[in-house]
């Protein structure tokens, strides 16, 4: 017999978990006491939301569910934003929370909150463990649920007394769930229909979403594009599936996308959406877009198909499975005329005006990506900095982009970058954020230094909440309120206070030298970029 707390740790070990992110408290102490004896590396974050975001970064790079831990009450509620973020972006997480003892549940005792109730709208599933003996089954199911089908966060809430009970530990070898059977293979008839539709189309276009990464179908997707001669655009979550300069590829669509990509999307006659959910930021007016076009939608979640756009050929299944089958077919239409047109569309470029005495973030990000290694993991935060990065960071073969496109959670980039770095210590990881978003996460500088994680941090400091300022200018008659965040703190001094190397860059003339210093540093490094206060997002 072992305690349920020990069983929880054993379950994690048996699932192959190497790193967990968390923040302890009284109600989760029995679990931590057993983690003491484990080889699992625990990363102590400085705020529970960041445990979730770091686990998200880790999960996205390993392809396995990331694990985050918090205590009951405020610990658990702090985790909520990270859970919702992971849910919106379909990131597999196992969120373990301590709960007050079963005899106290419902009595409003110290640090008690109904966390399974609070998280219900944005978890894939949740468990409030009442029977200690259920722990092995619940953990087995949780990992399976989080990591299969439409991936997402699963919450396991374990009361303190349950953690201390003794159980016979036996980890189930198989899943027995009569209700949950995610689709895997695509319907062969529909696959044939898709083949015929793209082969006979005059102007087919692929819209690549984050689901392609989630099913590990990057290679298969690109071979399909090549084989069937279909150009591609990307949603924010699908960025870096294609290298930025791939001749088949036109960039990001949507409200903040490139004109070229949006033009291609509007002029094509057949759209193949794959692992994309037609979010409002990607497609503002789905019914307008669908008019006169053949819409093909491939997704693992049946509920996404037909939700936001009416579909001519729906196909439910795993992207990689389906693309493998589509790649095995022959395509004799090379869409030559369409490719000539695409070539012209690609030449539509937006111009960038440089403001004297400041860093032009768009040009700067291009130069930064030129200098960094091909396989760099680039994490963008939320706001103008995100769009600058999406549209200007040059992704190359093996590179990877991470951001929260669904939730748009400020403060995501640094903890996510930390998680990504811990999963891939040999790769360069750069977090790009604004001075607004950085201040929602800067406590994690402590975690970065504690973990000795060589994360590179870029702060685009325009002393404004730039994207909201832009909204106020455009839509609210320039009545600016609550968007001026001033010229503080001194981020360079702040980083140094944490023991992190830091520098500042104010003009484009010094950009190259400063980028070189950042790129050649072997440890964590922060670079504050002086950006004009009215610098536009696009």
């Amino acid at each position: 017999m072992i305690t349920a707390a020990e069983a929880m740790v054993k379950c994690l070990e048996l699932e192959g978990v190497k790193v967990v992110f968390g923040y302890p408290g009284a109600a989760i102490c029995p679990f931590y006491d057993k983690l003491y004896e484990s080889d699992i590396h625990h990363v102590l974050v400085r705020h529970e939301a960041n445990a979730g975001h770091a686990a998200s970064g880790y999960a996205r790079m390993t392809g396995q569910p990331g694990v985050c831990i918090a205590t009951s009450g405020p610990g658990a509620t702090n985790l909520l934003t990270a859970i919702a973020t992971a849910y919106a972006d379909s990131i597999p997480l196992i969120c373990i929370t301590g709960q007050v003892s079963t005899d106290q549940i419902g009595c409003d005792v110290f640090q008690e909150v109904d966390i399974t109730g609070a998280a219900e709208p944005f978890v894939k599933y949740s468990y409030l463990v009442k029977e200690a003996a259920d722990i092995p089954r619940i953990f087995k199911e949780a990992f399976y649920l989080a990591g299969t089908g439409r991936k997402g966060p699963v919450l396991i809430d374990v009361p303190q007394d349950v953690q201390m009970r003794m159980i016979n530990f036996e980890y189930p070898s198989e899943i027995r769930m009569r209700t949950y059977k995610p689709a895997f293979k695509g319907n062969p008839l529909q696959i044939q229909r898709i083949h015929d539709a793209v082969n006979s189309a005059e102007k087919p276009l692929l819209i690549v979403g984050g689901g392609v990464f989630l099913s590990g179908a990057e290679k298969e997707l690109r071979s399909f594009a090549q084989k069937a001669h279909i150009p591609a655009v990307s949603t924010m979550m699908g960025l870096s599936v294609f290298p930025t300069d791939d001749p088949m590829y036109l960039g990001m669509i949507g409200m903040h996308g490139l004109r070229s990509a949006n033009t291609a999307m509007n002029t094509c006659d057949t759209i193949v959406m794959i692992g994309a959910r037609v979010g409002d930021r990607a497609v503002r007016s789905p019914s307008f877009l669908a008019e006169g076009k053949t819409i093909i939608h491939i997704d693992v979640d049946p509920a996404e198909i037909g939700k936001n756009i009416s579909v001519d050929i729906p196909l439910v299944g795993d992207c990689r499975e389906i693309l493998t089958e589509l790649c095995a077919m022959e395509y004799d239409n090379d869409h030559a005329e369409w490719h000539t047109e695409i070539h012209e569309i690609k030449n539509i470029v937006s111009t960038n005006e440089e403001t004297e005495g400041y860093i032009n973030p768009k040009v700067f990000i291009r130069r930064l990506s030129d200098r960094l290694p091909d396989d760099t993991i680039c994490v963008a935060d939320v706001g103008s900095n995100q769009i600058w990065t999406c549209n200007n960071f040059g992704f190359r073969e093996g590179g990877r982009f991470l951001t929260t496109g669904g939730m748009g959670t400020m403060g995501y980039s640094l903890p996510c970058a930390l998680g990504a770095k811990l999963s891939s210590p040999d790769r360069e990881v750069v977090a790009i954020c604004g001075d607004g978003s950085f201040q929602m996460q800067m406590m994690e500088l402590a975690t970065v230094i504690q973990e000795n994680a060589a994360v590179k941090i870029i702060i685009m400091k325009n002393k404004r909440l730039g994207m909201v300022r832009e909204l106020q200018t455009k839509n609210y008659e320039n009545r600016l309120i609550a968007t001026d965040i001033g010229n503080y703190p001194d981020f360079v001094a702040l980083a140094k206070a944490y023991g992190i190397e830091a520098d500042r860059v104010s003009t484009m003339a010094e950009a190259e030298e400063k980028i070189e210093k950042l790129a050649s540093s072997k440890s964590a490094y922060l670079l504050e970029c002086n950006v004009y206060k009215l610098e536009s997002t696009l």
Partner: protein
Amino acid sequence: MKYTVSVLVENHAGVLSRISGLFARRGFNIDSLAVGATNDPTISRITIIADGDEHTAQQLEKQLNKLVDTIKVRMLSADELIERELQLIKINAAPAQRSEILTLCDLMGAKVIDLTATSMTIEISDSTEVLQRFHSLIEGYGIKEIVRTGTIAIQKGAVTIR
């Protein structure tokens, strides 16, 4: 458009809140929701009467199916189902009116389950249509209180949902 949905779900704590939360969250309008264990005690059957267009109905079905606790979802069309709702109705009934009300109850298949000097409590179980007709017949006496279970439905003939 009104539609009837039968949902088989795992019979454990938290399932009903997941289902009802889904309706609120996705903006589906429900008229009634009735739930109870089936002959298999590990399974509950939920009958939902909802309102909305065809797109909404399809989305509702997909979202219900997506819930991990859902075993089966079946949209039932009006011509293939038998529906019933149980209602308990308390009305004003002076002694002089009793025999008249009793006749009405008798004709409509309702039963008097409680009686005082000034009131009567009636039990009736029938389809929505019949219940509406019964209401119109007795409302003249003054309805004091109505308690209803919500509609449950089963398919006609030998077919089953399992």
